[in-house]
């Protein structure tokens, strides 16, 4: 089924290239483009393939790893001289924000942002959200009670049955922490309650999924697409969009200042933000940043996702204090 979607997509992409005609080819970028990404492996491959269909002149090299590994590699490359990367596609805006602050990102004022909500990209046009990955509650099908809100999880009947990704090891989880603690209805008190309920913080979303799907834990704080993709393949798992709203990350794309091929890098950003790129995200099971292109099939039609607003600058400023407090609270 996935391959069918993909073929379908390739057809569209091909058509789009055909329709765009000479306009694209006349100034078509060429040369090598190096992409560092923390996307899941399969998504990264599909993204690159689709991009190459649109811009056949560009040869793409990918480094894919966990967000921490990508950031570690970047840090080492900066310290050693210059990064080899031209474009980045990372899970969370906090990482982008820190790179921006360090002066590593190249602004792209010409990005085509029509149809995107203002909160999804950096006002200075250095990074642009490509999709919306919300965090909600994953529930093992055999669980006796079903929570409807984050607040439910703090109740006694859930004690000891929850897993969450540790913000100390995952940028996306750090944004979730920053967003939720800055709210009056949740705040730090909520995490204190979670801790009191023996919630375990594991290394990443993948580990949460495994724990919940295997029944080791009944509930997990998890990103939407992982739960739905597993469910689609038959895993005994359900997903709840919490009543308070869902903290979200945007998987932003950005160009490094040190890029050797700015034209191709801009083309990559263009592609991610284009309707084709957005539809690709939908076909891979994500909620696109540009709502108009459609929604993934797992999302029940008519579902309104209530995204918790995140002030990324504030969250990123408070980040180290938040992590410290979390570490003290959870003992790490």
């Amino acid at each position, binding site marked *: 089924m996935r391959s069918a979607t993909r073929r379908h997509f390739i057809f569209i992409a091909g058509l789009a290239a055909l329709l765009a005609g000479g306009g694209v080819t006349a100034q078509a970028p060429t040369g090598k483009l190096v992409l560092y990404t923390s996307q*899941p*492996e399969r*998504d990264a491959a599909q993204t690159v393939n689709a991009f190459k269909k649109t811009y056949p002149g560009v040869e793409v*090299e*990918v*480094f*894919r*790893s*966990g967000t*921490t*590994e990508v*950031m*570690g*590699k970047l*840090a*080492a*490359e900066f*310290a*050693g001289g210059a990064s*080899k990367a031209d474009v980045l596609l990372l899970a969370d805006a*906090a*990482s982008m924000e*820190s790179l921006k602050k360090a002066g590593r990102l190249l602004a792209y004022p010409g990005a085509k942002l029509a149809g995107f909500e203002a909160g999804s990209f950096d006002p200075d046009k250095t990074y642009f959200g490509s999709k919306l990955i919300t965090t909600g509650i994953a529930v*093992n099908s055999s669980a006796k009670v079903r929570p409807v809100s984050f607040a439910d999880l703090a109740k006694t009947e859930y*004690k*000891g*049955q929850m897993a969450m990704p540790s913000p*100390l*090891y*995952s940028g996306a989880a750090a944004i979730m922490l920053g967003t939720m603690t800055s709210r009056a209805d949740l705040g730090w008190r909520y995490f204190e309650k979670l801790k009191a309920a*023996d919630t*375990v*913080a594991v*290394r*990443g979303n*993948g*580990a949460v*999924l*495994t724990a*919940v*799907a*295997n*029944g*080791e*834990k*009944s509930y997990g704080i998890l990103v939407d697409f992982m739960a739905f*993709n*597993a469910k689609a*393949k*038959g*895993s*005994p*798992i359900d997903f709840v969009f919490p009543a308070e709203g869902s903290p979200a990350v945007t998987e932003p794309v950005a160009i490094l200042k040190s890029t050797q091929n700015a034209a191709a890098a801009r083309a990559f950003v263009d592609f991610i933000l284009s309707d084709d790129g957005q539809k690709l995200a939908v076909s891979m099971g994500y909620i696109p940043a540009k709502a108009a292109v459609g929604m993934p099939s797992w999302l029940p039609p008519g579902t309104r996702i209530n995204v918790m607003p995140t002030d990324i600058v504030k969250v990123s400023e408070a*980040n*180290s204090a938040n*992590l410290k407090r979390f*570490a003290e609270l*959870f*003992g*790490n």
Partner: protein
Amino acid sequence: MMPEATGWRERFEDYGLLWGLLLVVCILSVLPLARLLLEGIAPQGELSAEAATRVLSEATTWSATRHSLVTALGGTILSVAIGCVVALVVSLTDIRARNAFVFCFVLPMMIAPQVVALAWLQLFGPASPLLKAIGMAPAMGSRNPLYSPQGIILVLGVQYAPLVFLTLRAGLRTLPRALLEAGLAGGAGPFTVLRTIVLPLMTPPLVAGIALSFVSCLGNFGIPALLGIPGNYLVLPTLIYQRLAGLGPGVLADVSVLSMLIGFIAVVGILLQDLMLSRRDFRISTTSSVARPFELHRWRAPVEAGLWTWSILVLALPLLALILASVVPAVGVPLTLKTATLANYDFVMFGHDAARRALFNSFGMSATAAVAIVAITVPLAYFVVWRRSRLLHFVNLVIEMPYALPGVVLAIAAILLFLKPLPLVGLSLYNTVWIILFCYLARFLVLGLRPVISGYYQIDRTLEEASQIAGARLLRRLVTIILPLVAPAATAGALLIFLTAFNELTVSALLWSSGAETLGVIFFSFQQGGDSTYAAALGALTVVVTTALMLSTLLMASRLPPGVLPWRD
């Protein structure tokens, strides 16, 4: 007549080899460390103690250090206890199916520790099929006992027991029958002989095993990450990783300082083992035949049962969990005849180019690293053991460091070194398999060196002198006399390197590039993306391929010196 009586050719060969080896060690071990250290003390090219002061004044640093010491020591003690008992029982008693057991005991080394830990988590958890079957499954929501320092120690101990086992077994194979018989004839019981003759003579391999195990436990990231993060038990490698994820400025400086802390602990550990080895004689004349096994009589069956139960727990159950997870369409789907599928294998083998490439890459790089490291360590250990000097002592210590540091740190050091093309030649290793191979050589050098050094300690040096008198120069002596004599130890080392490098993740996670994938990277990618069924299929395939490779060594066993293959008497 004495032509060329000055012996310049010999000296040239001698010093040439020595300095050549020192150069190799410098490039592999000292260079990355020095580059990293520079990042810690002079972040922007200017000397600054700021990072050091900041990191060393944090309470977290010291609690993580304490935790690291606890888990490393605990894991070492456990792995040494297990490895010793098993090596002694297997090598000195008359248990049946010895070779098969040795094989099953060594095999878990190549199942990634995370996989073993994961399998055990399920085994002891509320969803455990085993505990459910006997009605002892803990209630939903109870805390898994493995999420604790004890759990970390347990899994570390189990993971590194084969390491102690392999070095000790190589040593035990050189133990001549006469020495045991002399003890028994003196009226000593088997246990007294064990305590007073076998163990003292086995000090070099034992110490080598202890040292390797300690450094492995100290630098391990996977197990404390899986068990310690949920268990709120932070050790230095996880603290380093956490710092990397923290995104702050000066991350590298912090990481560098923390790494030096790990390095310091490792060096202290190695100095202690040097103390244990100094001023004693462990040489064994190898001309007498191999020890005849002690008869266990009525204890034989219970001992055999114990050994095989171990294999079931450590090899069969995790492997079964891996296989079961690989034949369902998605995580958590109950396995029935209807749901069972080979689609995951199909995808991994035929639908995913990178997975296939990774298998070749990992195999090629692990095998190359194993062979190259043996080629480096056999002559290097010659100088370290028989030509002691301050410089060689330093070399002996510094080789330990790249292995003690978390892989991600070594990878960062390699990036700092190789980001720019090599000076003079202008070649760039960056984004090729060569930078990964470089890290493997640097990281696993010690895995080869320790067993080989212990092998040297047990050689009677007159064997070498006899060939020297016969006119053989150093290189010829190394190849024709010394290599066959240290071959069992060298094979043990090569095997350790191969098995460890084959499923290595932490180094290549930062260094891989398109075409230069490794198994660990692909495995990790699958797992991280939530595709743990693909990961399981890949893991199971890896085990099958390696098992086949290890068994195929039996085909050429008759052409190898005796005692070289641990799983062949």
